[in-house]
């Protein structure tokens, strides 16, 4: 019998410090995920944690991990050459093909950028597959900004419209300040059959950003969100991520807004 809880051991190839508390780990592995899926990251004797895959390529996956608990505390001490254990990938991921040929709008708040980063990078490399990409990225402050190098690259893409904003600036910050909803409201986004919106971030940010798009006459079925929940098993057994009849780990974490709006915790 196959034991679905048994993880595999993988080697860390690279560790990038995005901020003081957000590190990106590149791990050599054969997991071939879909954009927006997650894995259960496992450190023996410490625990497991659901982690979204921030990027992937041939023989590797990237995970950007914030130090917020026991497992991630331990993880942040690991170096290239060390090992970690993973099982997965789990969840549905974003329907990438559905977005092709359309204008894509992505609103990401904080670490919410991680699960959509691979989509952005995909369309950055395959710009001809979409009409355009409007990217709204918000962080709490300049020191919280993740993936700055990549954001700068995306800004250079002529099919991309990138708005980077922070809730609160500092003495060096010359960029946008304010919530992303404020920038979305200024943008010429409106009723458009050929548009798809992805929103990922903290629960409150997703709620208000979605309302902002709805105000602009974007249809509910054009909006996609990704949920974060406390998933212990990742395979529909432990019950922690169930909302109504939906298991976030099985049917999510990506939901169309028509569904997501009905999911009351």
């Amino acid at each position, binding site marked *: 019998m196959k034991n679905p809880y048994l993880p595999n051991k993988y080697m860390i190839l690279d560790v990038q410090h995005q901020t003081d508390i957000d590190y990106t780990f590149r791990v050599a592995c054969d997991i071939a995920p879909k954009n927006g899926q997650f894995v259960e990251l496992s450190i023996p004797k410490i625990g497991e944690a659901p982690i979204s895959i921030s990027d992937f390529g041939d023989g590797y996956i990237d995970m950007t991990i914030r130090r917020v608990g026991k497992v991630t505390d331990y993880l942040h001490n690991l170096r290239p050459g060390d090992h970690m254990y993973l099982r997965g990938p789990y969840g549905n991921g974003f329907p990438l093909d559905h977005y092709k040929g359309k204008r894509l709008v992505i609103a990401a708040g904080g670490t919410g950028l991680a699960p959509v980063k691979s989509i952005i990078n995909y369309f950055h490399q395959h710009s001809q597959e979409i009409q355009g990409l409007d990217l709204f990225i918000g962080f709490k402050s300049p020191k919280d900004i993740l993936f700055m190098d990549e954001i700068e690259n995306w800004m250079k893409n002529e099919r991309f419209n990138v708005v980077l904003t922070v809730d609160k600036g500092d003495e060096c910050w010359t960029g946008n300040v304010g919530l992303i909803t404020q920038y979305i409201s200024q943008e010429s986004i409106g009723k458009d059959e050929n548009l798809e919106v992805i929103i990922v971030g903290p629960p409150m940010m997703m709620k208000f950003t979605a309302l902002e798009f709805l105000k602009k006459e974007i249809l509910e079925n054009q909006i996609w969100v990704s949920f974060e929940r406390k998933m212990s098993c990742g395979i529909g057994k432990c019950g922690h991520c169930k909302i109504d009849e939906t298991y976030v780990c099985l049917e999510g974490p990506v939901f169309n807004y028509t569904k997501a709006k009905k999911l*009351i915790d």
Partner: protein
Amino acid sequence: MSLKLSREAFDDVLKDLGKEYKIYAPIRIKGEGRFSDTDVVRYGEVSGLDEIEIHEKAHFSPKEILFPITQTLFYFTEGEYQEPKYDEKKIIVFLRPCDINGVTRLDQVFLENGEDKDIYYERLREKVKFFMIECIEGFDNCFCVSMDANKTEKYAAAIRFGDDMLVEIKDEALINAFQEKGEFVNFEPTFIQENLVNVKLPDIEQITTETFEDDMWKEYAQRCIACGRCNFVCMTCSCWTMQDIAYDENNSSGERRRAWAGCHVDGFTDMAGGHGFRKNYGDRMRFKTMHKINDFKKRNGYHMCVGCGRCDDVCPEYISFSSCINKVTKLVGEERK
């Protein structure tokens, strides 16, 4: 095949079966109950008929036999994962029809929900035979008839306890153990037809976000103390959490366990970093209620709750789950049959 056996003969059969099976049944543990000079009735291994307590509902359900309260998933030595040794001995459980129906719900979650089967549950489940305790009168707070969980066919043997024991044997593997020990009779178990408590089930088509946001849940925000007793005594509550431990200071060995979790208990929805989704106790009551009598059915076609009433028996705040179901039904209208 049905037999009548003397109590002594039945006891002999149990002793005989005990060589091949671990036999679990409700037992009374004298004086070790929650309050002083009270007993606890719960599942334990038995070796004879007289150890089985049938006059009182077991305070905890038999789910702990199939889904242990804590269960080691892996041992760790030097970073290697090792599964615990597998106990080959087969299992017999004495339980009532509601609890057998409860196992169907556990099967649904552990074996049918998602693509993967829960191997730890499956391994125990495959070894279990059910000895159904005939239950004609029920107990306080039982509402199995309303939940359509008063009857079952899924048993290896059905037993009527009395001065003589009546047994219907369905599982051929058991015939040898029984047949020389009693005389053939016509016996089929009777199932309870009416409980002291009845609930009306809601029309789940009419359950909407308004139902979720209704004021009825506010009362529970005040009354519930989030102790989780209702979750833990429930036959069908199947949630759990991973726990990793290191045995010693130098961290060289340890284990990964799972332990029962309850949606009423603090921390159930808390993610690393502290954000939790149901801080309000009324929300937790609503979540549990909806799982038991709404969303499980939407997903699987039948209700999760089997009406054993243990949650009502145990709640220190006298919150009655059956009353709560009735309140939901009053709000949205009765199920159309």
